């Protein structure tokens, strides 16, 4: 188990409040039971023939199979379409599992990005040092698992460049992100090394505002929105899949687009 660290620049009260939110919602845990008793299958069979735990196990196994299919479909050289500035969605939506006024408030002066795992240089990164790295820009479509989409403009450091800079072992399987509010994400190394995967420090050429993940978001246009962590406080390169906030509740792990 990973110990929760005191994260510089993060409001501790907020951390505790959000830790409470991480407790699984009992209604959600029983999603299949509720769905099955009244769902289409019941109409079809006239009775509850499927044990919901067995059904959930089968569905999760198929979801892991779908992870492998998507990893196979993922082309590292295939770029997400880019758009002209005129296509940027205004206002770009705020999105989270909490209301906007509860989004983490991070003090940029105190902020230090923690880096760890299979890397050579574990020295934490201040914002000034991150801003001083070579920057790239993209205008791409953010696609939410819910179905809606919005086009945004992000500027920041190419993640593959950053991994090279910290001496990451890119033969490792995963990159894990920890976020200020307790959110977390694990992504596959192939996606981490994709040229459009970006540690975003700006939105539309302005310092990333709080609502979009100040001070840093990982923008991954080849994955669904929830695989794009915001308020990032730590990045680890590792071989074990540490899961993620939504993935652990049943969303597909790979969630590539």
């Amino acid at each position: 188990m990973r110990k929760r660290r005191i994260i510089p620049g993060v409001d501790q009260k907020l951390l505790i409040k959000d830790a409470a939110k991480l407790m699984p919602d009992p209604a959600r845990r029983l999603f299949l039971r509720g769905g099955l008793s009244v769902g289409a299958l019941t109409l079809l069979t006239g009775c509850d023939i499927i044990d919901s735990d067995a059904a959930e196990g089968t569905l999760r196994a198929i979801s892991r199979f779908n992870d492998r299919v998507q990893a196979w479909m993922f082309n590292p050289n295939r770029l997400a379409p880019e758009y002209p500035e005129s296509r940027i969605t205004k206002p770009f939506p705020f999105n989270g599992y909490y209301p906007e006024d509860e989004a983490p408030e991070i003090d940029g002066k105190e902020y230090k990005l923690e880096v760890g795992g299979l890397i050579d240089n574990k020295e934490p990164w201040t914002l000034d040092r991150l801003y001083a790295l070579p920057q790239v820009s993209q205008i791409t479509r953010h696609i939410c698992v819910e179905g809606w989409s919005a086009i945004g403009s992000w500027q920041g450091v190419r993640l593959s460049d950053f991994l090279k800079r910290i001496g990451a072992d890119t033969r490792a399987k995963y990159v894990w992100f920890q976020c200020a509010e307790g959110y977390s994400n694990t992504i596959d190394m192939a996606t981490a090394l994709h040229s459009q995967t970006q540690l975003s420090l700006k939105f539309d050429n302005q310092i990333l505002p709080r609502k979009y993940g100040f001070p840093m978001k990982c923008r991954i246009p080849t994955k669904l929105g929830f695989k794009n962590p915001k308020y990032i406080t730590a990045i680890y390169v590792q071989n074990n899949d540490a899961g993620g906030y939504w993935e652990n509740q049943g969303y597909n792990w790979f969630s590539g687009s």
Partner: protein
Amino acid sequence: MTSVGLLTASERARLVIHPAWVRVTHWINAVAMLVMIGSGWEIYNASPLFGFTFPRSITLGGWLAGALLWHFAAMWVLAVNGLIYIALGLLTGRFRRKFLPIRPGDVIADAKAALTFKLSHEDISVYNAVQRLLYVGVILAGVVIVLSGLAIWKPVQLQELTAVFGGYDAARYVHFLAMAAIVGFLVVHVLLAVIVPKSLKAMVTGR
């Protein structure tokens, strides 16, 4: 009526209205479609395209993640079964024999006859013009719903396909409209199977 046992093999084959592969793929498709529609409605509810949502009592999955698990599991059944059905339909000549020709004049005449309850259901091995049109139509809707679904699922990896549907957002509408067409077909299809029960029997026993 002649006893089936006294007939030659070829005569017996002629009595079969639906060969086994049609019946098997039909019922697998029926289950897969219901799962896809029920879970698809729950997914739709997460971000509705129109000013309505589907009542949770008729959706599958309980919430978005559950519905997505069902949708992305049943899609394999729907797609593989559908490919087998279409391949066999083309290779055996069944599509050509049963569905063609479709003449507009016949469709109008048969539709009029159906609406005034004058359409004959004597020989259910021969489809009337309205049936032909609807069956071909629903097969095409099935192809469109799978392709638009792929376009929504993989708008980066399959971006050329997504572009064919006019982009990601437009593909969602195409996917929804194809669902609406299939559900519309289903209502008429089930209703007519109930009105003409021997058609339902034929899809179970083959005769």
